[in-house]
């Protein structure tokens, strides 16, 4: 046993014996806070039996030190001054538990994230650490042994979003024998990946690798697939969520529709009139349609906005006729609400692409031959509107194509972040465009970012293919010809920073490599699931490195591009990680909840009922026979709002009792 | 095996001392050489910039002449060594070049089948004779003589055939075997400017200045070179490259002159008197007897 233990004033206040442990955290704390002085100071506080400082309290020897002291010195309260309690409170609580002390007789003082890392003045930092330790010692006096609540885990899982991330997560869980509800907003699953032609860097066709997974989702007995549906409400808590799903009417009885599309052929519209969402408006669809040939489920949809029957009620309904005996078409279908119970939730709601119109100087929407990269994905897709031929709006083949990187990325005027996938998909498009049209292809980039397996090699291959790489951000795209060779062309103006002069490059087609953004309704969605967003609007993970798919809400996981820009391999890996986290929870069969619930001193309760409306979980009710409020512990989530609102102080919260907080307040303010 | 000695044009002019001392070392070490019959200019770096195809043909004539005699070539001049090596590589790598060269050789009744090795004296001394054998033959150890070994560019670049490309040490080892002290010389493979001193004098002088100043700073008594052009640049323009505040003066010798001296060759036969910077005071100061 190390002999750094300091003599204390030895006063034994009511049998309370406190041990104080000050962590150096290498130099993380010790570099700014005089840990020895803090430990010495703590040794002089009333009730402190032992006070030590140690290099790494969280290490095994550090924990053993506490355990040893508890047993040898009969300690019954522990204060650890170290990193944030959000990091190692569980570690130290386990240490107490192992030593036979109730884990809640511990108070952790945050002297790293909120002291040593944020202050430069060593003296002030040490004084602050002393104050915080003093408050903790005073507070821990009042701590009471508490018991965690165990709740069972419902093995069903909800996966929100049917892109490649959601698909992979759902399949992984279903294969593990769990029941999965996969909810997708669009009429089909597949997400953005279904729109792509080829995938980088291997150039395997997106449909070839995606559609088998899509059909597997559609036919898996363990997956309930609800497309054209949205989650509207989530209640409950980890392991026991109650979720309401809104199912929009597709005016087709899914169980009866075979996907034969005879109704589509028979529709009174001989030609499509509505911009096709899946092809980004580059083609037209009818009011009754299948989003794309490999859609899952293979069920058509009727769009009430454009269907004549909905407008005039006077349509000949040739579709119904074509459907015949199957009678799958139902114009009277209404929106329904389904309620399901799940134990865990995986959010895989993906991203949206940047609206290129926000950068007007690139001429998107003004010049017909300025496209977004996603549109070009559709144009070069064999199943796309042009059958895979890259043609300009006038049907001609482009002779020169400019690909503009970082549109809506790395730009303080729009989005500051790097969208991560654009370099690689731009290279892919450059390759495909050159291959299909033989055009001169110019890439305008700021930095070429190709960190991934086989990615740099792909870039090298593109270099060899003779694609031009101009390092510089494009200033503008215009149709103003400053030279005879520019007549009738779109002129891209950028500095070639490697050549160190400005270049004007006339092209026939401009591809804007748009960045990735959070979905427009990301804020609304995160509120439904009670999670946070980063300042950019991406869903916030619990820890950027060590808990990338967890959130601060237990049992709710995030996966894929809803957490930040990701390519397909990363999204799939993320999906697997989220599924594994959910499975780990399910297989544990129960989860322990913190015991921070509220309770009532019935003697003091006046029955004023003012607490009852304060509780968002309806955990407080009024017992008429006693004329007192009662709290249902199972429903209480431990926020403490009712405690603060009780006019007679007759509600208290475990671990956050009024007296405990008062001690802490007075502790930080009392002069030594 | 007898080798074909390919002196190259410079060793008949400014680099005369190189030839004299090299032959003396050959004699001392018992290496049998025979001058390549009717050798011609390799084309050097200059021909390459006017007409590279022709330059390969010119170099190939020498290769073919050696091949006919079934001998390997020893090329002491760094430029010759590189050009001959490079020609071999390009004939191997580019069928068009091979065609051009073969046809040109055929017009004068020559053939080339890539059976010749082009070697540098450093390589021959170090790997064929060996340090032990050389040390055994040293009669006049260069004790106390501090030498900066200067390899220049083309011995190790771009083809590192017998030494490390970034930090060659073959000459260091040979000189140490002769009893000399080799001083650290980080610029050992930095360019001397080649013919730049003749065409763009300021630039040539700039490069020469740093090479000499660094050798002097590191305490060298002399700089040892492997290339006639390097020797010429460093010796003949050192005065011009220096300034009043930082005068430059240091003998620049061929490594073969130092070796020949150690191996006991008569001083008169190794071209010491051809130096523009007098060598005698240095050798006297180091008590290296020579006669």
């Amino acid at each position: 046993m190390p002999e750094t233990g300091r003599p204390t004033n030895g006063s034994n206040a009511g049998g309370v014996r406190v041990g104080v442990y000050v962590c150096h955290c290498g130099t993380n704390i010790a570099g700014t806070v005089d840990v020895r002085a803090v430990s010495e100071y703590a040794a002089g506080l009333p009730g402190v039996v032992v006070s030590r400082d140690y290099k790494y309290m969280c290490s095994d020897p550090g924990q053993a030190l506490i355990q040893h002291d508890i047993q040898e010195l009969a300690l019954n309260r522990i204060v650890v001054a170290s990193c944030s309690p959000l990091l190692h409170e569980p570690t130290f609580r386990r240490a107490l538990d192992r030593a036979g002390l109730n884990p809640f007789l511990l108070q952790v003082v945050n002297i790293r994230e909120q002291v040593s890392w944020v202050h430069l003045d060593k003296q002030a930092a040490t004084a602050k650490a002393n104050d915080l330790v003093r408050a903790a010692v005073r507070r821990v006096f009042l701590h009471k042994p508490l018991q965690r609540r165990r709740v069972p885990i419902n093995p069903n899982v909800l996966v929100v979003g049917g892109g490649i991330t959601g698909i992979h997560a759902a399949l992984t869980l279903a294969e593990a024998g769990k029941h999965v509800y996969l909810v997708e907003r669009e009429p089909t699953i597949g997400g953005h990946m279904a729109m792509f032609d080829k995938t980088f860097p291997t150039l395997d066709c997106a449909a070839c690798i995606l559609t088998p997974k899509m059909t597997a989702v559609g036919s898996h007995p363990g997956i309930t697939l609800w497309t054209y549906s949205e989650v509207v409400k989530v209640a409950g808590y980890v392991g026991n969520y109650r979720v309401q799903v809104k199912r929009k009417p597709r005016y087709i009885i899914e169980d009866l529709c075979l996907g034969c599309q005879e109704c589509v052929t028979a529709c009174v519209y001989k030609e499509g009139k509505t911009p096709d969402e899946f092809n980004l408006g580059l083609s037209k669809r009818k009011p009754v349609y299948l989003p794309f040939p490999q859609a899952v489920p293979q069920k058509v949809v009727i769009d009430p906005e454009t269907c004549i029957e909905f407008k005039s009620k006077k349509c000949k309904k040739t579709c119904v006729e074509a459907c015949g005996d199957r009678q799958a078409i139902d114009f009277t279908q209404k929106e329904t609400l389904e309620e399901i119970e799940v134990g865990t939730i995986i959010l895989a709601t993906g991203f949206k692409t940047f609206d290129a119109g926000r950068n007007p100087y690139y001429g998107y929407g003004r010049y017909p031959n300025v496209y977004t990269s996603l549109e070009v994905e559709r144009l070069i897709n064999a199943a796309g509107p042009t059958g895979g031929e890259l043609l300009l709006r006038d049907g001609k083949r482009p002779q020169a194509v400019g690909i503009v990187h970082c549109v809506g990325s790395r730009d303080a005027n729009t989005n500051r972040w790097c969208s991560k996938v654009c370099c690689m998909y731009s290279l892919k498009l450059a390759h495909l465009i050159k291959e299909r049209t033989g055009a001169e292809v110019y890439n305008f980039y700021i930095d070429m970012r190709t960190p991934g397996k086989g990615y740099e090699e792909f870039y090298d291959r593109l270099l060899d293919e003779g694609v031009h790489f101009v390092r510089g951000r494009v200033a503008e795209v215009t149709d103003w010809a400053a030279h005879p060779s520019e007549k009738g062309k779109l002129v891209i103006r950028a500095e070639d920073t490697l050549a160190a002069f400005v270049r004007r490059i006339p092209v026939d087609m401009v591809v804007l490599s748009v960045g990735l953004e959070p979905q427009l309704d990301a804020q609304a969605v995160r509120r439904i699931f009670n999670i946070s967003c980063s300042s950019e609007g991406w869903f916030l993970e619990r820890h950027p490195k060590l808990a990338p798919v967890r959130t601060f809400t237990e049992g709710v996981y995030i996966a894929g591009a809803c957490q930040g820009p990701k390519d397909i391999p990363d999204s799939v890996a993320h999906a697997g990680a989220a599924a594994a986290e959910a499975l780990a929870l399910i297989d544990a069969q129960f989860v322990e909840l913190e015991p921070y619930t509220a309770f009532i001193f019935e003697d003091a309760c006046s029955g004023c009922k003012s607490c009852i409306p304060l509780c968002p979980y309806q955990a407080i009710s009024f017992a008429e026979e006693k004329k007192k409020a009662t709290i249902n512990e199972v429903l209480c989530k431990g926020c403490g709002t009712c405690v603060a609102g009780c006019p007679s102080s007759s509600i208290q919260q475990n671990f956050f009792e009024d007296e405990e907080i008062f001690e802490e307040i007075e502790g930080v303010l009392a002069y030594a | 095996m007898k080798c074909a000695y390919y002196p190259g044009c410079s060793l008949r002019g400014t680099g005369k001392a190189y030839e004299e001392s090299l032959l003396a070392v050959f004699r001392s070490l018992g290496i049998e050489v025979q001058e390549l019959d009717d050798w011609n200019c390799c084309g050097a770096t200059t021909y390459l910039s006017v007409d590279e195809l022709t330059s390969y043909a010119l170099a190939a004539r020498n290769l073919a002449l050696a091949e006919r005699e079934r001998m390997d070539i020893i090329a002491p001049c760094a430029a010759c060594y590189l050009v001959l090596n490079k020609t071999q590589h390009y004939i191997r790598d580019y069928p068009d070049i091979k065609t051009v060269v073969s046809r040109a050789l055929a017009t004068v009744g020559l053939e080339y089948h890539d059976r010749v090795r082009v070697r540098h004296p450093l390589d021959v001394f170090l790997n064929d004779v060996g340090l032990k054998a050389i040390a055994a033959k040293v009669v006049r150890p260069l004790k106390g003589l501090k030498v900066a070994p200067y390899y220049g560019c083309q011995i190790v670049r771009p083809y590192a055939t017998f030494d490390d490309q970034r930090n060659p040490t073959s000459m260091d080892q040979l000189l140490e075997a002769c009893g000399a002290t080799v001083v650290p010389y980080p610029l050992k493979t930095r360019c001397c400017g080649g013919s730049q001193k003749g065409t763009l004098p300021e630039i040539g002088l700039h490069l020469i200045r740093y090479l000499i100043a660094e050798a002097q700073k590191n305490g060298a008594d002399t700089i040892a070179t492997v290339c006639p052009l390097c020797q010429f640049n460093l010796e003949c323009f050192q005065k011009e490259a220096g300034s009043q505040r930082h005068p430059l003066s240091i003998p620049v010798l061929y490594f073969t002159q130092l070796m020949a001296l150690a191996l006991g060759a008569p001083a008169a036969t190794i071209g010491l008197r051809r130096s523009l910077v007098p060598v005698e005071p240095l050798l006297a100061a180091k008590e290296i007897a020579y006669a």
Partner: protein
Amino acid sequence: MELKRTVKFEADRDPEFARWISHTVGGERIRHCLQCGLCSASCPLSLYMDYTPRRLMHLSREGFKEEVLSSSSIWLCTACYACMVACPKKINITHLMYALKERAIEERFYPKRFPIPVMAQQFCRMVRGSGRITESWLILRVFLRTAIWRLLSMSGLGWKLFRAGRMPARRDKIQRQHEIVAMLDSVAATRKELAL
């Protein structure tokens, strides 16, 4: 102040030049250039260059022929091969410099009385005439055609070298000079035939 248009139009580019450079001997890998600048940083002459080797590689593969061939850099290159050995993409930069020099001489992209091409031409002429180079004669010829005054300033050095026996007055010559001439003519003929 003289103002010059610096913005480049695509019409300023010569795609044929770009094609040529990537198909010339040694230029096979130029397109792989990542523009890392290791060549420029390795080059002992880059501090005097108007375009560093890196920039020259980029301009060449993009086809900016005027800029490349009128650049001083191609003449400053001493063929020390430092760039080529360093290049992480194994681009034969030194050889490309030779190719550019050759092209620049062919298309007369150099100032009048510029000594480097003059020396190259005199060198070739001497090889054709003698089969070997006699340095003293070569230097004399070059200075006569470029800068006579420098000949005067060099005369001191020349005299010293002459006295040291390093400046032979007689021109060295091979015995079978006709072989050299025949070979040179053969190369010219084959080049024409194969359009190299």
